[in-house]
């Protein structure tokens, strides 16, 4: 049978086969899991998939594919007949067969030259072993299939024929005419095969070109026979209807495999039933065109019982090794360039199945677009600005809907990628003698096709890493008291317009010390630099190029091309990666990816006359250094320009220097008497700042690739077309950091800073929002209490009956001013005042101010007496200026007494409803107020104490009522640690959750606290986190 070179048919076959084979790997694994407890439906499904591939391949002359599929099918057939129990060994054989099959299909053009001997031998071995002795031979034996007239059609395996005839199935041979029965009915032979496979089991098929002899198309009597050997449970009189073929061209076999014409059998049956109705299946007159041989067979054949004219059962023929001499290289398909082992089914990528509903939506939108265009054209003639506005709005709407709809067609579930890891994990674990259970979550999460395709490799690497290095062998796990089966969790979820993929294992974790040793060994970093890094920063070193953690280079991972490749691949996709690990507890790697690559939100920046798009995924924050401040904030350390941002040093580059191709360019800011715009971006393992001339706008951009001549430029990730039609380049944040050889700046430990750190070690420090109302008075609000800050227009602020309100987001926001309550200078009116929004009594309230100055970390050396007044809790010196600390809750309570009453009532009700009671132990009244404020706001009862001694007293006096303790660490008389020890010493408080609220950072301090019995170590005014922890502990109690 020659290889058929019909492009279209081959393409359809390859596509379908890939689809068929797509899910069966996980099915095999499922079958393995079921073991003896077989799920026949599943086995049937796999069988059918392989079977369909075999059918098509046989027809197309893809002999190796057919042979391999055939062997797999034999084994599966035994399984579904219950003659073989799927053991892991059997499944391994099938899996490797499946791999090979996929490879063959991918490189179908040269598949006939590929070597499948190993797989075939294994499959045959498994099949033979499972067969009863008397059937063992049947694997190799072939039988000739001949027409009643003795014409030899083809050979088929005895085993297969035997299997086909089992379970009441009848074996048929159908002879289609390629022209009349197939082409003229607008079908292809593949369609026929598919039809037959739906109702029965295909054994063999062949287009008999030899039978034609000299080809004369004009000869009307010409038939091109297409023989199909198949088995089905349908009786002789029905089979013709099934395959839509005249009975005269169908033959059946009895158990001894003698061949009989179906027509005779069904006629006989009908006669027997005394059905005098004219048989519709009888050969109509035009059938006279059939070749003489066939016609003769019909005439001569007697009813079924009659002995056939020619005994058809032929002696078994030893099967000759199938070595195809055919030229398989098809002209129509180019041989794939890479013959690498990893197969990339290039064919599937070219087409995409689209949900019909999505397509309908697109159609509708296209229609609307046409209508709107007409509307636009009309408006142009009428010159009516209002109509124009309408039309523009519609275009806008349709465009975004169109964009969404088109994106939807490109979305695919991530499960496509996830599910293939079952196999990876299984094989690896087996090889390494580990037990791993892979739990997959969120496989339904959809992402753009291009991303789905691109994350496969990085994820494979991470999974392999986890199994290879992360998860311990069974013995080690047992010694550690862990369950022998490790859990590897692969999950995906949506989060803020991005997809977060997590790979979590409960293995050995990564020891930061080992990374440090390795890093020093490799000369990546100096000891001094390491000493200044947190453990998490140390972990991130593994993303640096050339860093491989494997002690020995293993087959599985550790070739020195490790996490850095993963990292750079993900960066290219606009993703970020983070790692967390605890020794002996496990490792979690989180990857954040955009939903789509095609359209991304971006910030447009300007340098000179050029505009650039900066992907918002990389954006951390925007910083504006006021004119004249630059000299203070920006400095040069070791040839690197850095900026001090909230206590940390941020490496800075000037985009202009990058564009001029200069490295380490000196930024001359002194002579610049304008404000400096800095875009703080994230380059994966660290942040840096980019100085630009101007920040223009944020825009959704469509990413376009750059041409061949510009591919190599590291600075750009692509190009886009902006609203005005001009092209603009997209900056590659990671690429720029590489080109500029940026490194995270180590903290320069000069005297001053050391002092600061010492101080930080002892005293509380807080992030404060500095504000002013246009006078010399400076105010501060703890940043943790602020929900957000809105820049508004003066006009939007409406004042009615002494109340200020802001209309926004469909509702109104009550807006207070500091001077409403506190005796401070009234606010100077500005065009664009700011509203600081916070939560009070479950509702949002705003405070209007003229200017936002900065966010600073300052030591909470609070003077709670001098400036104490309504709405102000105290004062402190921040940035060399006396700063009044605003008491947001006090302000709100004083300005809105009715809301306060409501709150009180609510509290009363809460008490009745047995709301949880929290004891807060805190010496600073300022903090006490703030914490009390937001915890009460969240609906808890609050009891307070000013130091540990008082705390203990409170606890003793109302022990039954207290459900949770929040305590400060640094306090007079008895500090938080001592207090906790005392509490824990008492039997009745063993299970009392105690959360420390502190700003004393440092691992050492945390360790001491945890040892003393504190459950959680939290940053003082991180409202969200504190509340989340309170809720968690109240719900779940202390964890161990």
């Amino acid at each position, binding site marked *: 049978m020659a290889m058929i070179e019909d492009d279209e048919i081959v393409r359809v076959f390859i596509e379908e086969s890939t689809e068929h084979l797509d899910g069966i790997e996980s099915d095999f694994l499922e079958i393995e899991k079921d073991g003896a407890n077989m799920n026949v439906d599943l086995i049937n499904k796999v069988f059918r998939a392989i079977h369909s591939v075999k059918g098509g391949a046989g027809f197309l002359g893809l002999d190796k594919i057919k042979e391999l599929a055939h062997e797999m099918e034999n084994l599966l057939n035994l399984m579904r007949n219950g003659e073989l129990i799927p053991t892991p060994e059997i499944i391994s054989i099938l899996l490797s067969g499946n791999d090979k099959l996929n490879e063959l299909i991918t490189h179908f053009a040269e598949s006939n030259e590929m070597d499948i001997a190993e797989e075939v031998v294994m499959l045959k071995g498994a099949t033979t072993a499972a067969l009863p002795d008397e059937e063992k031979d049947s694997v190799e034996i072939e039988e000739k299939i001949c027409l009643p007239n003795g014409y030899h059609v083809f050979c088929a395996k005895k085993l297969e024929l035997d299997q086909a005839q089992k379970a009441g199935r009848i074996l048929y041979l159908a002879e289609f005419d390629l022209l009349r029965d197939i082409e003229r009915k607008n079908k292809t032979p593949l369609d026929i095969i598919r039809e037959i496979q739906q109702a029965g089991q295909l054994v063999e098929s062949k287009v008999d070109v030899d039978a034609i002899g000299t080809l004369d198309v004009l000869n009307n009597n010409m038939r091109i026979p297409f023989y199909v050997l198949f088995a089905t449970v349908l009786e002789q009189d029905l089979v013709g209807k099934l395959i839509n073929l005249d009975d005269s061209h169908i033959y059946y076999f009895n158990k001894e495999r003698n061949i009989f014409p179906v027509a005779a059998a069904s006629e006989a049956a009908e006669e027997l039933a005394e059905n005098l109705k004219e048989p519709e299946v009888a050969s109509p007159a035009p059938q006279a065109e059939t070749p003489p041989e066939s016609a003769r067979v019909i005439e001569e054949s007697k009813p079924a019982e009659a002995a056939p004219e020619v005994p058809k059962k032929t002696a078994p023929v030893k099967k000759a090794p199938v070595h195809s001499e055919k030229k398989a290289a098809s002209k129509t398909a180019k041989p794939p360039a890479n013959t690498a082992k990893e197969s990339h089914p290039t064919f599937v990528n070219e087409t995409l199945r689209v949900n019909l509903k999505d397509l309908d939506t697109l159609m509708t939108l296209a229609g609307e677009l046409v209508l709107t265009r007409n509307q636009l054209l009309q408006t142009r003639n009428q010159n009516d600005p209002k109509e124009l506005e309408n039309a523009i709005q519609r275009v806008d709407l349709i465009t975004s809907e169109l964009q969404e709809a088109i994106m939807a067609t490109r979305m695919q579930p991530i499960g496509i990628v996830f599910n293939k890891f079952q196999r990876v994990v299984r094989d690896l674990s087996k090889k390494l003698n580990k037990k791993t259970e892979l739990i997959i979550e969120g496989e339904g999460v959809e992402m753009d096709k291009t991303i789905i395709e691109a994350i496969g490799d990085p994820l494979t690497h991470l999974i392999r890493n986890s199994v290879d290095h992360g998860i311990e062998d069974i013995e080690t796990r047992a010694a550690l008291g862990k369950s022998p089966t490790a859990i590897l969790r692969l999950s995906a979820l949506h989060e803020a317009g991005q997809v977060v993929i997590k790979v979590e294992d409960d293995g050995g974790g990564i020891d930061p010390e080992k990374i440090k040793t390795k890093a020093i060994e490799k000369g990546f970093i100096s000891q001094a630099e390491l000493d200044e890094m947190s453990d998490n920063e140390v972990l991130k070193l593994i993303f640096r190029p050339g860093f491989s953690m494997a002690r020995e280079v293993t087959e599985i991972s550790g070739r020195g091309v490790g996490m850095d490749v993963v990292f750079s691949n993900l960066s290219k996709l606009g993703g970020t990666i983070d790692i967390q690990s605890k020794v002996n507890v496990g490792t979690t790697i989180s990857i954040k990816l955009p939903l789509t690559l095609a359209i991304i939100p971006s910030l447009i920046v300007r340098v000179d006359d*050029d505009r650039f798009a900066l992907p918002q995924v990389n954006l951390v924050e925007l910083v504006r250094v006021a004119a004249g401040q630059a000299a203070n904030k920006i400095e040069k350390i070791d040839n690197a320009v850095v900026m001090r941002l909230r206590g940390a040093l941020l490496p800075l580059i000037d985009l202009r220097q*990058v*564009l*001029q*191709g200069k490295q380490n360019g000196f930024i001359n800011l002194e002579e610049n008497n304008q404000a400096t715009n800095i875009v703080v971006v994230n380059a994966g393992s660290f942040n840096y700042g980019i100085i630009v001339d101007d920040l223009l706008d944020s825009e959704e951009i469509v990413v*376009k*690739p*750059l*041409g*061949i*001549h*510009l591919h*190599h*430029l*590291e*600075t*750009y990730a*692509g*190009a*886009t*077309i902006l609203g005005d*039609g*001009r*092209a*603009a*380049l997209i900056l590659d944040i990671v690429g720029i950091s590489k*080109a500029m050889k940026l490194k995270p700046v180590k903290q320069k430990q000069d005297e001053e800073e050391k002092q600061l750190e010492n101080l930080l070690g002892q005293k509380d420090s807080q992030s404060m929002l500095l504000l002013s109302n246009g006078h010399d008075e400076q105010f501060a609000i703890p940043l943790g209490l602020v929900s957000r800050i809105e820049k508004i227009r003066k006009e939007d602020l409406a004042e009615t009956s002494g109340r200020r309100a802001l209309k926004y987001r469909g509702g109104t926001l009550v807006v207070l001013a500091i001077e409403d309550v506190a005796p401070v200078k009234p606010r100077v009116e500005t065009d664009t005042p700011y509203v600081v929004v916070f939560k009070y009594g479950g509702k949002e309230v705003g405070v209007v101010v003229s200017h936002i100055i900065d966010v600073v970390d300052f030591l909470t050396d609070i003077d709670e007496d001098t400036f104490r007044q309504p709405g102000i809790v105290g004062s402190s010196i921040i940035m060399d200026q006396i700063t009044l600390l605003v008491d947001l809750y006090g302000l709100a309570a004083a300005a809105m007494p009715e809301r306060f009453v409501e709150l009180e009532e609510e509290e009363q009700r809460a008490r009745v409803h047995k709301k949880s009671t929290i004891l807060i132990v805190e010496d600073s009244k300022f903090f006490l107020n703030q914490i009390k404020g937001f915890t009460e706001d969240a609906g808890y009862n609050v009891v307070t104490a000013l130091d540990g001694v008082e705390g203990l007293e409170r606890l003793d006096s109302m022990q039954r009522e207290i459900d949770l303790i929040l305590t400060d660490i640094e306090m007079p008389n008895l500090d938080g640690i001592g207090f906790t020890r005392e509490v824990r010493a008492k039997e009745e408080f063993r299970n009392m959750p105690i959360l420390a609220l502190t700003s004393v950072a440092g691992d050492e301090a945390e360790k001491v606290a945890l040892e003393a019995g504190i459950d959680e170590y939290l940053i003082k005014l991180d409202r969200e986190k504190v509340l989340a922890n309170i809720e968690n502990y109240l719900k779940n109690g202390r964890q161990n």
Partner: protein
Amino acid sequence: MKRNEQEWMELTIFQVADVSCAMDILNIKEIIKHLEITRVHNAPPYIRGVASLRGEIITVVDVREKFGFDPIPLNEDMRIIVTSYRGENTGLLVDRVLDVHMVDVDAMEPLASNINGINRDFFSGIYKMESGLAAVLNTEALLQGDSKLNEHVR
């Protein structure tokens, strides 16, 4: 290929500095007049920039610079000739487009030596017009990422 008597081709004649160049019209996808070119920093000097062509970003090569002349500011006469290079549309910035000539293929002559000091690899032949000579551009050679490109790979 050779048909009965003569084989004709249409050549588009354009000018780069003082050199008259020609290109088979079949190799030209279009000639664009709006010159909104966005500069690409760090790119090889012969890259004038990128431009938007109906939603596609094309690279614009400055043929003057390729020939070794100094680039000049954009002016009204300049055009971008869009041609296909390795499957992607690429623009050639030329000083002006002059004419289209129907030419007998046999009238083309091979190049004897360098023209005005320009690398002769850039041309595939010479065509004699009434008004003078036109050098037929070999775009493949002109656009090839030669060693010059590598210099700029950092």
